[in-house]
């Protein structure tokens, strides 16, 4: 199979509640990440990099900023006459309301699914950060003769209320699934990337709907472990699931490690995002930057250490930024100091102000706040 045989579906807001601070003004898919990206970019890029040319993005709550970000889909080469990007808001047609659960989303997407000619469907969420090689995933699916393939990562379990822990046999077949088990804190956990034939997906949706079942993992996957061949595909390299503000902070900081950057950003499968036509970043006389990831369009006249700066951030003379994540257009005034802080877009820290969190408790400053 190639990308031509696959259509993508991305849920943009299933996990909004684990990042309430940042998703107050946006949905998970448009949460800024890694200096110049939004979380949706990673899954969208993974899909187009293997040749998928039809992607539906299910918009749940607060989706205006995600619509702004995706626009016509051109940065991902998804502005097409045939197929391309489909933004799928709720209240799509009569009888479909607010999406609610994943099952609700799928029911709302029946229209989209019915009009899809592609044989396979790749469904993902937006809370995983990885460089997904869909070709490898598809080849695994075919080699195993799987009905459903779930991508997973191994390690400490994300602190999500519905984290799905997989038990696999020697052939990578999923033999057991546990949702948020209380007696385990590490293991193989699903990262909300699922692959199957469209015909099977439709059958499962109709079946679940007829039985009044509302939870895709509990009611559909777990109950079919014996009947269907459900296999687990381990995502190689860097793969993280954002489960909280702390997790968001830590995963951003992990990008300061070259190995992680090299795993996430490859020349073969670049991560595409919307462009802003910023100027290059300007480092002034007396600027002092160490171990930091910095996007274009910044003006840096102060000190920046162990930090991630998004596009258009301005650090004035004498200001000190340490261990912080500063989102787009943040302004740090003269002689101000921030440490272990996450600023949302358009935050202004006035001159001489000092704000400090801790590495295990970063301070979050909401969009547009002036301090």
């Amino acid at each position: 199979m190639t990308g031509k045989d696959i259509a993508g579906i991305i849920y943009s807001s299933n996990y909004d509640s684990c990042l309430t601070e940042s998703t107050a003004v946006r949905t998970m898919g448009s949460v800024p990440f890694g200096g110049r990206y939004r979380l949706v970019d990673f899954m969208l890029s993974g899909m187009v990099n293997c040749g998928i040319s039809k992607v539906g993005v299910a918009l749940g709550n607060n989706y205006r900023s995600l619509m702004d970000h995706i626009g016509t889909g051109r940065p991902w080469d998804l502005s097409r006459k045939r197929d391309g990007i489909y933004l799928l808001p709720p209240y799509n047609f009569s009888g479909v309301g607010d999406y609610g659960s994943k099952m609700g989303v799928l029911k709302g997407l029946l229209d989209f699914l019915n009009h899809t000619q592609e044989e396979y469907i790749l469904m993902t969420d937006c809370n995983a950060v990885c460089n997904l090689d869909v070709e490898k995933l598809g080849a695994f699916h075919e080699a195993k003769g799987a009905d459903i393939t779930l991508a997973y990562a191994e390690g400490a379990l994300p602190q999500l209320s519905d984290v799905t822990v997989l038990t696999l046999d020697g052939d990578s077949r999923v033999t057991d699934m546990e949702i948020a088990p209380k007696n385990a804190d590490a293991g193989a956990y699903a990262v909300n990337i699922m692959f199957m034939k469209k015909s099977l997906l439709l059958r499962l949706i109709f079946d679940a709907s007829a039985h009044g079942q509302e939870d895709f993992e509990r009611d559909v996957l777990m109950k079919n472990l014996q009947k269907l061949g459900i296999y687990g595909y381990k995502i190689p390299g860097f793969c993280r699931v954002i489960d909280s503000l702390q997790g968001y902070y830590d995963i951003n900081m992990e990008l300061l490690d070259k190995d992680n950057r090299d795993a996430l950003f490859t020349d073969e499968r670049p991560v595409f995002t919307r462009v802003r036509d910023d100027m290059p970043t300007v480092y002034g006389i007396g600027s002092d930057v160490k171990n930091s990831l910095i996007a274009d369009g910044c003006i840096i006249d102060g000190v920046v250490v162990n930090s991630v700066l998004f596009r258009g951030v301005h650090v004035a003379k004498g200001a000190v930024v340490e261990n912080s994540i500063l989102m787009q257009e943040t302004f740090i005034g003269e002689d101000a100091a921030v440490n272990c802080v996450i600023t949302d877009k358009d935050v202004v820290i006035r001159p001489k102000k000092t704000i400090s969190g801790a590495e295990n408790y970063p301070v979050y400053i909401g969009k547009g706040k002036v301090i």
Partner: protein
Amino acid sequence: MARKKECIAMLLAGGQGSRLGILTRKVAKPAVPFGGKYRIIDFPLSNCVNSGIDTVGVLTQYQPLELNDYIGNGSSWDLDRVGGGVHVLSPYQQIKGTEWYKGTANAIYQNINFIDRYSPEYVAILSGDHIYKMDYSKMLDYHKANDAACTIAMLEVPWDEASRFGLMFTDDDGRITAFEEKPKVPKTNKASMGVYIFTWSKLRKYLIEDEDNPNSSNDFGKDVIPAMHTAGERLFAYPFDGYWKDVGTIDSLWEANLDMLNPKANLDLSDTSWKIYGNNSVHPPQYIADTAKVENSMICAGCEIGGEVDYSVLFPDVTVEEGAVVKYSIVMPGSVIKRGAVVQYAMLADNVTVESGAKIGESPEQMADLDAWGVAVVGGGVMIGEHASVAPKIMCDNDVAEGEAV
């Protein structure tokens, strides 16, 4: 027939730019990288869209492949427009035979049909080798207010540089009374910026006459404008006082790049009301390591900096390893400067590799003979071996072996 436009622009982008040497070996001058993430042509194209001109003909002739590719459908500048947008205009076959563009005026003459499609009142003629930000709509207002046949943008240049320019004398109303082309002893410092607005009906007539004149060199500055002047047409000089630079030489290209770092240079790229648009790279953000020391520089996405960078402009995806030094230099996309290498007063084209311990360029203070000093240039894809050196003012277009000095 396309919809009528009040003013369209024609951008002269066919020149070889031979004085840029190896930098224009494979690309036309307007496609030469500039200012960290731009190409020279981004400036006039962005000026057009920011001035409300949505129809631009780009006249190409020399090495057009990369330029055509870069312009694409014009979407980078919002010039993928219905009933307008950017059009690449190359010389073409005609019944009477095939002709290259013989001169700037002939290039426009050969595209009279293109311009007539839009039946514009006015045509702006622009160059593809100038760095400046200018609102052509204000110049057009000036042109209309003066009922001019031709308006030439004019800049007062320093007197000691005036002899390099085409100069103009004006009366108190701004009307041009005389021209002087690169005089040895200038009597004015009002220089032409090579930016013209013509009333199309007038220009059309003079272009046809110019083409019929076998003695003409078919050049705007040398032939068409003097002919209009002689015929008594109303020619006006539009005063401009912002940043403007012709980047036709290695030295001026190097200087103009470094001008971006000079707040006094009056070219603000951060101004969101007059953005310079271009093709953006898909690289991840730049990473500045613990071992790095970066000051007074412009750096782009995808760069990995472990060494010292001072007073330099780095394009996307440049690597400066720990212990390497880059000073007063322009480093174009994809180049790698390895451990212990020193690059100063130099321009490196794209994908150059400077192996460890190599040395490129020299600071003028270290030169016994200042006449021997100049910017060192390394061509695209060239490999400079370990501990090799490239002297100032050299244009290095071939690999330099380990330990060798050129």
